[in-house]
């Protein structure tokens, strides 16, 4: 007997759900916008899709702010929001875009490196973290910023595999790491959205001749990674000099070097596959501490956001100073703010924004 498929009410329901999901997905293709107000230092605004057109109109596209100095020098790429819940990097990048002036070289700033992850917080590590956080400017305006997620949104990418295999190395991770930008480097132009984002970042580094790359991250308060500067082995001298300088300024950082075996991370892969000196900074974020209910990701006295932004920016300045010392002025990069970075300590971060 031949059984013929006949639509039943249940199948119709499933069909409607599929159509609904498709509509939701279609409505999410635009890249998330953010409250970033470029200052006088910004010469140019580009998109990541300029370096990989396939990203245009996808949730992975993201603005790139370009600041150029009057004096020729090297090129710096600052990445915030590789993990969009690690907001000190996002806000440090935002502060550079809004207030910094480059005097030597060129600085490319991407405040939301994984813009899909920035759209929504799925509560990785702590379900009580917020969707938004607010900062009040000096003028009394309340500005709202996304508190995003560690990974690309699930609906923006094909379903997670059971095991994510980092292509070039064969290293295996849990399936959800297929959406972790910092496990997908050096990316793939024809791969998943996360791999395409990575690929475009590598294209930027190559095309713009980036000399120094800093990927800004955060860890939990108690993580061994908190307050750490990680560098590629080629950049170990710059990192060592920077750490000693910072220590003399009262900022104690631990030093780590990229593992030879752990692939997919920015400092390892940019260092291996490009000429850039690659660094990763980790500041401590109370929002990544699973044991803290409803963490105050801005004002927790153990690690206020302004202090974490201070740590990120002072470390970057120390890296640049020692990059110039060791590599010479031809590729040096200098930028400054109209305030002392130490003014950020214990202060209202919003007062330093536009």
């Amino acid at each position: 007997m031949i059984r013929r498929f006949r639509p039943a009410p249940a199948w119709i329901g499933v069909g409607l759900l599929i159509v609904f999901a498709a509509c939701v997905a279609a409505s999410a293709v635009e890249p998330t916008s953010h409250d970033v107000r470029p200052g006088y230092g910004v010469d140019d605004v580009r998109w990541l899709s300029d370096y990989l057109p396939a990203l245009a109109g996808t949730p992975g596209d993201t603005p790139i702010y370009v600041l150029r100095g009057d004096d020729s020098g090297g090129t710096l790429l600052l990445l915030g929001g590789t993990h969009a819940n690690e907001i000190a990097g996002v806000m440090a990048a935002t502060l550079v875009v809004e207030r910094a002036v480059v005097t030597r070289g060129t600085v490319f700033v991407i405040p939301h490196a994984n813009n899909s992850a920035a759209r929504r917080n799925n509560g990785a590590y702590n379900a009580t973290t917020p969707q938004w956080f607010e900062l009040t400017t000096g003028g009394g305006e309340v500005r709202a910023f996304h508190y995003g997620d560690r990974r690309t949104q699930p609906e923006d990418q094909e379903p997670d595999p059971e095991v994510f295999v980092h292509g070039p190395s064969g290293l295996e991770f849990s399936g959800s790491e297929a959406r972790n930008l910092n496990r997908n480097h050096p990316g793939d132009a024809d791969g998943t959205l996360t791999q395409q984002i990575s690929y475009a970042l590598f294209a930027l580094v190559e095309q713009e001749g980036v000399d120094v790359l800093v990927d800004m991250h955060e860890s939990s308060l108690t993580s061994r990674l908190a307050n750490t500067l990680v560098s590629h082995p080629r950049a170990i001298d710059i990192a060592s000099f920077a750490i000693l300088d910072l220590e003399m300024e009262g900022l104690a950082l631990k030093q780590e070097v990229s593992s030879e075996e752990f692939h997919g991370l920015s400092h390892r892969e940019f260092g291996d596959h490009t000429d850039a000196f690659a660094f990763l900074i980790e500041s401590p974020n109370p929002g990544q501490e699973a044991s803290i209910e409803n963490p105050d990701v801005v004002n927790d006295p153990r690690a206020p956001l302004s202090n974490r932004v201070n740590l990120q920016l002072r470390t970057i300045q120390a890296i640049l100073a020692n990059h110039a010392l060791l590599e010479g002025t031809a590729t040096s990069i200098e930028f400054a703010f109209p305030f002392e970075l130490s003014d950020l300590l214990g202060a209202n971060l919003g007062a330093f924004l536009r």
Partner: protein
Amino acid sequence: MKKRNTILTIGLLLLIAFGLTAVAEEGDVQTEPVVFAAPALITSIGQSAGAAQARVVAIKAGVEAMYVQRATLEDLEGKGTLIVVLGASSKGLGAAGVDIDGEVAWATELFDKARELGIGIIAMHIEGGSRRGPSSDLVITTFAPLADFLIVKGAMPDVEWTADEAANGNEDGLFTTLAAENEIPIAYIDTTLAAVDVLIELFDIQPEG
């Protein structure tokens, strides 16, 4: 308090310069000043990043030195001093493709060779409390007693530590105990960069010009 620690360190070095040791008991005074010869070989035992910082310290002190993260016995040829930075890093050990036992076995050979060649050994611990723990302590308790001089970023006995808590590598007094038990001179520093002054004294670096 930073100044206080630095002053204490300098005071200690003056004692050394006059031929005394930090741990010498009465009637057991070392009469020869502690002076080490360049060039130095700087390496890590435990494969942490501290050895790279020690290289920077040596550069700033003006000590001629070669830095090899995991030195070979051949690297010791022609050297006047072996500077080892103690501290285990699982990431670093993984990168070197060894476990902690393999590291201890390799470092034992290195120390034996240094002794055979008559090379002085300085052991440093400059990464603070974050570079303490079972593996690091194995490295410390195995090799610190075999050194000719110890430099530790950490609190002196009976002196309050007011720098970053995490920077105190001697909170439990381990280095003080090892130095006392083995009669090894020790310098306490409160910042890694303070080791520059210690090396200047130990290598008798004269100011240029």
